[in-house]
């Protein structure tokens, strides 16, 4: 069973082709991630699926309902958390929640059990104006408001952008709990590490889907030998690795540089000797397993 079925969707704004013939399916009850940078088309896609925009061509179904002809029914069964904070800043936490419950013809009391885990964390501040909340608290309130009418499919557009690492982690823990209650969740993010927490991931760039896979398979399909390299002069190390005759890709990665070689088999000592000749000290070279970000970059580079 699929909760979301999308076939050949395209959408243009004047000259800009925001989505180019996109197709994918999302299994019921799964957590599906869209990973891609700003401008990739993630927001346009979400707005089409929650019936705020119409595609130019192609079809989209949510729980079997057509997004053009059945848009009213879809609106009552989806929850949507837009990328931009869209609650009423001049209403309190509690007033916002009540407002959204009422709009959907329900009450906070009816569905409180759905949001209890999340909402209880901000309940101590329920009289505070939404505009005065911290980033992490705004995000929890927005998720509560998107959930209060008991949606079957939840769309979260970059819920963790600009949010610190602690709140990001907590947010993903909340998503896991929601998923376990049977809700289908579509989430977009520019953070590659979050991809590893999804059941399936679509890598999206320039309005096209590059790949749809489980995170494990994306990593498993990485064919290159990947090395982490380090020395005392990292700035020079980048340049020197790039000028090495067999160098293929060189990317800084935290305290290491990730390096791939044009050859299938590489002699590690060759590379170490080369770097030593270039006056590098304390050289570390180790073969590593790629993460999602390595994989994404290798797709982008193709």
């Amino acid at each position, binding site marked *: 069973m699929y909760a979301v079925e999308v076939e050949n969707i395209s959408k243009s704004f004047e000259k800009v082709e925001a989505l180019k013939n996109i197709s994918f399916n999302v299994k019921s009850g799964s957590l599906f991630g869209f990973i891609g940078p700003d401008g990739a088309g993630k927001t346009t896609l979400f707005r089409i699926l929650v019936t705020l925009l119409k595609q130019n061509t192609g079809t989209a179904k949510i729980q079997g309902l057509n997004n053009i002809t059945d848009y009213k029914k879809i609106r009552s069964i989806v929850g949507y958390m837009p990328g931009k904070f869209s609650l009423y800043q001049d209403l309190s936490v509690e007033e916002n929640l009540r407002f959204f419950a009422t709009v959907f013809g329900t009450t906070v009391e009816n569905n409180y059990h759905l949001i209890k885990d999340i909402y209880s964390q901000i309940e101590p501040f329920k009289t505070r104006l939404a505009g005065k909340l911290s980033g992490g608290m705004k995000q929890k309130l927005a998720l509560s408001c998107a959930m209060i009418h008991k949606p079957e499919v939840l769309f979260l557009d970059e819920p963790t952008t600009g949010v610190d690492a*602690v709140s990001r982690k907590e947010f993903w823990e909340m998503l896991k709990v929601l998923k376990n209650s049977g809700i289908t969740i579509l989430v977009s993010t520019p953070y590659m590490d979050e991809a590893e927490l999804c059941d399936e991931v679509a890598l999206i760039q320039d309005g096209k889907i590059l790949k749809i896979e489980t995170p494990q398979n994306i990593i498993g399909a990485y064919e290159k030998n990947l090395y982490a390299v380090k020395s005392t002069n990292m700035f020079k190390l980048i340049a020197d690795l790039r000028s090495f005759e067999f160098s293929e890709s060189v990317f800084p990665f935290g305290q290491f540089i990730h390096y791939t070689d044009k050859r299938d088999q590489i002699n590690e000592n060759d590379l170490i000797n080369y770097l030593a000749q270039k006056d590098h000290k304390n050289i570390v070279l180790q073969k590593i397993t790629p993460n999602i970000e390595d994989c994404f970059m290798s797709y982008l580079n193709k």
Partner: protein
Amino acid sequence: MQEETENIIYVRDLVKKFGNFVANDHLSFEVKKGEIFGFLGANGAGKTTTIRILCGLSSPTSGEIKVAGFDAFKETEKIKRNIGYMSQKFSLYEDLTVTENIRFYGGIYGISRKEIKVRTQILLEKLKFEEVKNTLIKDLPLGWRQKLAFSVAIFHQPKIVFLDEPTGGVDPITRRQFWEMIYEEAHNGMTIFVTTHYMDEAEYCDRISIMVEGKIAALDTPLNLMKEYETKNMEGVFLKLARNIE
């Protein structure tokens, strides 16, 4: 020891209060010339307050603060002339072209027209932006805008540049090209003061401070912090420190 190295930022017992709320609670730290200094903390920890003070935009309640040799109480105009600033939210005018933006910022910093022309040409060549020099900013891809925003922020060759979450939302390759630009400037002696939510970017910094509830909870090299908190990466350090408050 690096005692001889110049302290380009010197902060002793910086306190900033808003009414009863203490946003910065006795902060003390130094940043050396040419250093990449990562200034981390959870949302609401007080980072923005500190940055505004160091940029001469807000007055501290008490403490001793010198930026590029100037006093943060009395010499804020001199501070502003000697620093650059870039944030993700505001950087360039979208309805001006690439060269118009450069000329505008150059003019604000009092660089002569002739000099602006010369430096603009050098910059366009370096960024490989000659073909888009008459393109409006809103028509440029986000990654290009950010590279330009950084270049414009340092167009007047400041001693220090403050980068407030400079890389949000860009693709991973562009993000890395951006950091290489930062590396290069630091290598040439510019001091970089940067905030970020990407913990891998924190590891690019020479030293990192982590702010928790208005105080500096940790300050060291990434490697030493990882050793001290017994984690493999900076995310681990950050989670251990920032989680403790709950």
